[in-house]
């Protein structure tokens, strides 16, 4: 006997199908409420069989995968052997820093005494994307590395691209050399600085293939802030504070969130470390840094 699926949309009691009446009537008397509730929930599956359900799911999976592939890999779309796309970190990489100390920091309440909580105020930078990124649904093609948009859809002669790439690499090396020299100078003020050799990122990757690959900028920032952080020897130990900052394109530091250590002197030392380090070298792109200071 050909199997006939139950009529999912209609309540069993109204099923006009005569052949199965008896058994459906039977089953409806056994589990009437269960059937009715679930039959109403599943819409648009009139006459669905297990097979059609499977086909539907495979179809949906295929659509999802296609959409995902399209969304996640836009950069390989225009790849042909005639033109190359070059990933450039920043159009401004050649410029020197000229900005003065521009740390945007929530200023402590003036007046005598001050509050004990003045360093733990949460400040949302006006254009900050917020602390969580759950709103982002993947990478939007337009918002990727900024310089990329220049080359994304245009066809540019091969020679110009290579020249541009060489120029960018030279400028990047220059910035790194400056940062390295600065770190050297700071080293003489601080006996406890640990400065790893600052090399180009590819070399660093070659030397540390197993460990996490930290970008050059990360290492530079860490060294600068570490060299500016001091705390009295006899002061309270075992403390820890966390800061979330956003570094603007000009290197200025904006505090987004400050989690106090519970000790005023320790918080003060952390705040001073940030003030002395601002402005940082210009980042490849506007970046957020989460820092943990612990003694």
């Amino acid at each position, binding site marked *: 006997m050909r199997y006939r699926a139950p009529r999912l949309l209609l309540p069993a009691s109204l099923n006009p199908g005569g052949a199965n009446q008896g058994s459906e009537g039977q089953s409806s008397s056994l589990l009437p409420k269960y059937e009715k509730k679930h039959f109403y929930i599943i819409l648009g599956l009139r006459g669905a069989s297990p097979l059609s*359900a499977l086909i*539907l*799911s495979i179809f949906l999976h295929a659509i999802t995968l296609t959409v995902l592939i399209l969304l996640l890999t836009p950069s390989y779309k225009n790849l042909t052997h005639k033109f190359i796309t070059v990933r450039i970190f920043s159009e401004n990489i050649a410029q020197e820093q000229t900005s003065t100390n521009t740390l945007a920091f929530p200023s402590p309440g003036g007046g005598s005494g001050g509050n004990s909580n003045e360093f733990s105020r949460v400040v949302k930078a006006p254009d900050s994307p917020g602390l969580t990124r759950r709103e982002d649904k993947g990478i939007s093609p337009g918002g990727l590395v900024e310089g990329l948009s220049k080359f994304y859809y245009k066809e540019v002669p091969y020679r110009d691209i290579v020249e541009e790439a060489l120029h960018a690499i030279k400028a990047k090396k220059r910035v790194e050399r400056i940062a390295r020299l600065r770190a050297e100078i700071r080293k003489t003020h601080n006996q406890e600085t640990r400065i790893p050799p600052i090399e180009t990122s590819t070399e660093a990757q070659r030397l540390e293939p197993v460990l996490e690959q930290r970008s050059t900028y990360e290492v530079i920032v860490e060294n600068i802030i570490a060299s500016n952080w001091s705390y009295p020897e006899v002061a309270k130990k075992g403390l820890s504070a966390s800061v979330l900052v956003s570094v603007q394109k000009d290197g200025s530091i904006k505090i987004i969130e400050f989690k106090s250590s519970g*000790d005023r002197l320790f918080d003060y030392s952390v705040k001073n470390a940030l003030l002395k380090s601002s402005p940082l070298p210009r980042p490849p792109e506007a970046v*957020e840094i989460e820092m943990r200071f612990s003694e």
Partner: protein
Amino acid sequence: MKIVQKICSLLFVFYSLGLWVAEVTVVILIPSESAGRIYIDLTSPAPRPLLMGLQVMADGIDAEGYVHQIKKVIQDDLVYTGLFSMIEERLFLEPAQSSFNPQNWSPLNADVVAKLSLQVLQGNVRAVLNLYDVNEGTQIFKKEYTGDINFLRTLAHVIARDIYKRFTDKDPPFEAKILYVGEHDGKSSIYIMDWDGARLRRLGIVAETIISPKWAGELRLLVYTTRERDGSWVLKTIDFNTMTQKRIFESKRLTMAGDWIDKNSILISYTESDNQDLYILDIEGTKLKKLIGGYAIEIDPVLSPDRRSLLFVSDRSGSPQVYMADISGYNIKRLTFQGGYNTSPRWSPDGSSFLYVGNVNGKNQIFIQKLDGSEPVQLTNTGNNEEPAFSPDGRFIAFASDRDGQWRIYIMRFDGSGQRPLTEGYGFSPIWIK
């Protein structure tokens, strides 16, 4: 069968839909790798105190004579805490009278600048303190103080306290005083001085022997033990509110005052039968209640800051060691296990540790030990060092040392650093009073 079939098909649909929904959800929730977040972990800050530029200026000729003194008191107070360091005046780029400009101070690596102006008029001093944060480039506060010129040192300690408190949110002991037993005309007498050793004064009390002074905090009562010519032991109290003295107990047998419990009861060690035991003395009724005793010697009872326990010395194990008990006298626990002669226990203000005196290679040294069972730490190692006493904020220890040939009052930081003498003449049994 029909039921099973229905359920199976339901399950199929649920499964396929659910899987798809889960897939999409997972994809959405995978954190994106756009504009990256950098994580930085920093430990081991450079050990360096806050660098301060202190400028004191006289507003008028009358004030000029006091500039040096007030500056020295403030500097000594702040620097001795170990949290501050003073920039040398000859390095200053900005005159004291000029208004604060952070660019004059950041080349010196300064963190704090304090500008104090003094005015003296008809026996009164008026001081205006302006405090600045160099790294922020802003003013922190402005405060005005007035007082009698004879109390200039007190004023300086108050100013130093305000600066200290601003950066640490804690109370320093700058205004505290230290009382100790000294010598006068071959007999014992009681002295009081500032925490830095200045303004030494002698109380008009003289006795053959004065030992074990104990202070009752806010009550401003002092109890001490004396031995009179006939050999009897006498306990006396001084009420610092009225500056009157009272005789509260006497005995032919060895008696020594311990800590105050309240204005009417004192822990004492007393010899009833053949050795010293711990008692609570009721002052009003001159009654004794036995607390801890037995065949062994129990002395030197000190009450915990939360008033729930006490420390004392007992030789019940065969040698003098430090023990702890409830104020009820029960739950006796031995605390010291290193060394064969450990005495003189003293609580830390937060109740987490205690000081004691242990004999090492024939000399008495001061140790600190946490109550959590960790190892004791030796704080002194030159000469004999005894009678330690924590400052109210727990960051300093006053003690007596004979390292220079005679017993003197010394002070050091809680970690044993910064040891230096406070008295020139004989001194013993220092206690902190306010």
